[in-house]
């Protein structure tokens, strides 16, 4: 069973990244805002990468005889 805390974590990170993006854009630093967005995406990807790999292994075991 998937624990719900991961979903909340991803949601909270997303909200914070959006706020950081808004602040940076209002300060006229668009290029840094892009980097911050990328960092947020990588951060969230690192959170879910375990689950993704687990999914792949379970799919693999499904098709093995």
């Amino acid at each position: 069973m998937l624990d719900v805390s991961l979903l909340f974590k991803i949601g909270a990170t997303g909200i914070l990244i959006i706020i950081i993006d808004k602040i940076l854009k209002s300060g006229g630093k668009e290029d840094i805002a892009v980097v911050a967005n990328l960092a947020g995406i990588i951060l969230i990807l690192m959170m879910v990468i375990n689950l993704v790999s687990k999914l792949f292994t379970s799919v693999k075991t499904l098709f093995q005889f």
Partner: protein
Amino acid sequence: MIKIIGCAVILGASTMAGFIYSERLKYRVFQLNEVQRAVHQLQNEITYVHTLLPDAFKSVANKSKEPIKELFNKTSELLTDNDYENVYEAVNSAINTIKSKLYLDSDDINVILDLSKTLGESDIDGQNSIFTLTIANLKKQIKISEELMNKNLKMYRYLGFYFGAVVVIALL
């Protein structure tokens, strides 16, 4: 319990880092204003009192606040000791010694160095025109730095806090 304390420490530290970084912008404006005042005083010393340059630097230093005080004091000492060939080298070396205390960027320092290139090398009229130019340049730098401060002061503070929040959530 330890987890909560750790999170609070990270959040506090990043918020403080944001505040400290934003203070730099304020210090730059303050120091530029101080330099402008000091240059006005130096102009008075040279134009009306006809003071010798090392003494003029010394007397301006006595009326200034740190770290501009130290800059002028150091320059005065270097000039009195005859360590350098010209004023430019003395000012340059004085700036390098107290660089860690100065929050000025390279453009601001160039304005000061440009002034020092002509100090003591021409008559009063020539020096006066350079003083006028320097003060105009300083005013421009102050305007730029004030705009930068107004725009970025709050941004750095908020960013510090939100960056800490992201780190806390990632670690949680």
